[in-house]
């Protein structure tokens, strides 16, 4: 592997990567750059437009609904990330231990990932609005009698659905991490007397640290851009209490004809997500180095 940079690259690599580069540039980079350009105009999405400089960006900072959607998105992303990672790690450890029906259970826990988010959301919308209130009435529990999606706690309903679905994929990644640990290490640990939580903290967790990093990055990115489940469950309501940035972008950008203005908002979201992801990767890298 020495002298990678000076040695001649075999043309087959170029052939393999070139179509990808072209497609990626055409369908991803170009619209992205267009979006950045239009964020400096007053384009409505069609028709005549002119360049307006930084006006859109200045307006973004003054818009109360954008501010509240950022607050909500961060609150949601933080809570969901923590819950998803804690739960999936627990699930993965359980599914990696010697239990009966291990493969069957793994399949069961993976099913939510295969289902479409919108479908899940519609099913849960029905459960929240029709089934749970019936249960509440039958058991006479006041808190369950009302549809949670119609209260100020609507975001908890969304959180439940999101966590339930996201755990599947994260568990899978943690599982693959756990399986990559050499059993010899555990044996050595057992001889040294490391058990239970202590063993988890000193051996298991450091060994799967890179998986933890990638899970965190993916989670935060996904939840900062949460869209499907919210459109399916509450459409951002009641009020704008569950409007994430993506939902706001869609509603105002496409339905409200504020394409350029919301492009500016989208660029800001992009910058924020990028910074957070880079910071996470950097921190994760340091942690991994420490254990290597």
């Amino acid at each position: 592997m020495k002298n990678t940079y000076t040695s001649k690259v075999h043309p087959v690599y170029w052939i393999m990567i070139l179509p990808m580069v072209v497609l990626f540039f055409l369908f991803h980079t170009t619209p992205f750059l267009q979006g950045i350009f239009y964020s400096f105009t007053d384009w409505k999405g069609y028709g005549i437009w002119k360049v307006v400089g930084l006006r859109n960006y200045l307006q973004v900072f003054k818009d109360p609904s954008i501010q509240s959607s950022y607050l909500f998105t961060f609150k949601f992303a933080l809570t969901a990330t923590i819950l998803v990672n804690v739960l999936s790690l627990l699930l993965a450890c359980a599914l990696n231990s010697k239990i009966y029906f291990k493969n069957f259970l793994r399949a069961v826990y993976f099913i939510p990932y295969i289902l479409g988010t919108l479908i899940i959301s519609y099913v849960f919308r029905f459960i929240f609005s029709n089934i749970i209130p019936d249960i509440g009435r039958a058991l006479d529990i006041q808190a369950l009698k009302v549809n949670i999606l119609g209260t100020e706690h609507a975001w908890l309903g969304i959180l439940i659905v999101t966590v339930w679905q996201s755990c599947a994929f994260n568990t899978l990644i943690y599982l693959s991490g756990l399986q990559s640990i050499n059993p010899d290490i555990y044996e050595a640990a057992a001889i040294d007397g490391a058990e239970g939580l202590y063993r988890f903290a000193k051996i298991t967790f450091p060994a799967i640290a890179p998986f933890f990093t990638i899970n965190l990055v993916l989670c935060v990115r996904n939840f900062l851009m949460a869209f499907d489940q919210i459109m399916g469950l509450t459409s951002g309501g009641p009020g704008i209490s569950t409007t994430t940035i993506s939902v706001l972008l869609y509603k105002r950008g496409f339905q409200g004809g504020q394409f350029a203005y919301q492009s500016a908002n989208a660029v800001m979201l992009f910058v924020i997500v990028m910074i957070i992801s880079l910071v996470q990767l950097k921190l994760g890298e340091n942690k991994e180095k420490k254990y290597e």
Partner: protein
Amino acid sequence: MNRKVIGKIVAGLTLITAAAWTTVSCSKKSNIASIELFSTKGENVATLQKLADKFTAEKNGSIKITIISPQDASTVLRSRLTKNDIPDMMAIGGDSTYTELASAGVLENLSNEPFIADIQENYLQMLYDVNKDTSKTAYAVPYAANGSGVLYNKTLFRKAGISIPKTWDDFTADFDKLQKAGIKPVELTFMDAWTCLPPWNSMAPVLQPKNFTDDRRAGKTTFAATHREILEKYLVILGKASGDYMGTSYNDGNKNFAEGKAAMMINGNWAIPEFTKVNPDIDVDMFAFPSTNNPAENTVTSGIDVAFAVSAASPNKKAAEEFLAFLVKPENAQFYVDEQFAFPTVKGAAQNNKTVNGVKDDIAAGKVSNFPDHYYPSGFDLASILSQFALNYKNGMDNETNITQTLAACDKQYDAVNVQ
């Protein structure tokens, strides 16, 4: 090794994303002999298709019409315009979609077409009012109108011994009488935020000052100074509504109403077919929302539900205009109105269904106001503000604080989107 694993996962995800992007298909081009009619109202496709077939037969097949209406059609239409892939003909509402299309210069000016004379003046005026410069230019032909007010179950009204209320005081008294008779007075479905709009839309045109729209746009007045009474009356209705209305969806509410579980719904004629789907025998009618104690002032809220527009850039403009002239003929307009359960905007057609008897005369006599939200800038999300207002009430917020806060939110958001 760690880096490799991460690298693999990232590469895999990139591939999946790229694959998803490439499957996004391109739109097809319309061919020369045919007209593409884009309807933002999925419900009217079957009716339009019948009219189109009749037209094609009349023309011996020389003009072919394809009708499409995708989900979330206004959004799709907007995104098609971004690609400059404009349908030859569009059936759109007389709302912000029309304003935007017209002001973007993609619609043909139809003012000089002879069939404009066959359209009722008050609906043409409604269309002019939503032109960005409010000029008397018709970039579309109003074809059908809707009506919004109070839908009521006649059987339940009889049971409680009440008749159609003409004044606000009678209206509120009827709520109590229904309650006393053991009938749930009103079914509100605020889980779908847009259903918070109909009560506002009924009261605002009557209770707000005459020049509010223009003055507000120019920043000469505020919601806080003019719309207090509307919210006060809104709170009265919320106070008399029972049940988990914040958690009831439009579909569930329609079902409940159709099954006779509530006496009234504050919504429009478009909900009636939803009731008859569940219960074909329901005895339902509609009356104008009694916003004030003076029956002469109360109006039915009625807006342009469907207007036909022609793309200025279409190569088949002539054919599209021929089809338009055909649609506006009274017998065809009548056919549309009957099938679609709409109110006509074309002279010589009439809506005779008994389920809208209570508002038919008001509409025919022009005792109507347009939906006030058609005049608000697009992006002004009043539905969300009102849904928050209702939630605040449910959470026991003090009425005075709630009203002040809500009106302040209206003004703040209006100013935020008025810039664009």
